[in-house]
């Protein structure tokens, strides 16, 4: 039997939007070195 599905892209996002590990929105001003960011974790597109 055909499943009923919702279109994921049309579902609401959380008010607290969380980016993938190691990403930043603005340039870091020059402080604590986050090893995850420095390691350049690549999780794919």
């Amino acid at each position: 039997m055909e499943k009923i599905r919702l279109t994921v892209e049309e579902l609401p996002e959380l008010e607290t939007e969380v980016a993938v590990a190691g990403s930043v929105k603005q340039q870091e001003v020059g402080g604590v070195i986050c090893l995850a960011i420095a390691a350049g974790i690549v999780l794919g597109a």
Partner: protein
Amino acid sequence: MIVGEELKAWTRDRDAQRVTRADVDAFAQDWNRGPVHRRLEDAMASLPVPTTAAQVAEAVSALFADHDWVDELVAALARRMQADPFFDPPFRNLSTDLHAGLLVFEDERVSIAVGVTSALQMAVRKNQPRGATSVGFNGQLGVYRFVKAGGATLSFWEAPPIGPGFTAAGAGLCRRTGERRIADGEILVIDGRRESYVVEGLQGSFVLLQASIAVDQAPLSVEYDSATGRFVGCSATGDTSSRIQMITTLLRKLDHQPAFEAIAGFLDHPDFFVRWHVMKELLGLDLQAALPHLKRMAATDPHPDPRRAARAVLDRIEAPARPGGKRAA
């Protein structure tokens, strides 16, 4: 990058490549079996189970009291690289535009890195025109030994603690709490779940020994605007959460129905953003099967954001159908 005749010769010489590879492997073996690595392993193995971030920090601080091994390690690497320009240190490379480092120890409790922050690059960054900048709270307790402080002046910052219930709306403001010059050899313990630092000035490059403690880490690292102190954004602290999100999306895009129950197993994940992500993928796979989970999330999820989002979807589903058989958007 090594270019020219030397590289051309090396790329054509399988024996030379084998020698380089053998040297790299031998170095890694020596390091992994050597006294420093063993001391780190023994210290971590002797911690109680379960252990706390503070206990890991205490053990690491004791190990950081002796840092002669940093000079020895750097000297040993330099010798190998002088002897063979194609020798690639067998450590994960950590680099930003300001900092170059090597990850010398890693287990499930702590990652330890040695690195240099360049005074020149720092000056370039501080003096060039740039857009908005952030103070980052990395979500982990950290121990920092400034092996050579380079005359660094640091400012210190605080923000509301980042916990499992963190919300953008309740992020509050970060604030500067002080500033001082750091001495050579000084050890700082910075709780990245509520504290951070910014390098305000440098007279020379500094050499830093850094331990980032994964035990009791916050689910998020958080950015605040350095000028206004306002919340800018956040990202997952660990890559496990992000990988779960990617894999569940892939399974849904492949319409892999047998994975439904396995994906639903992540609805109890400690990170709120993983729970909602998984919920969306389940709704994209099979609405009827996902509906009981959606109702439970709307009623009982401990975080307000997934509760609100789940409620919004339920309201949409339960809205009376419009004439023509379509439901209200």
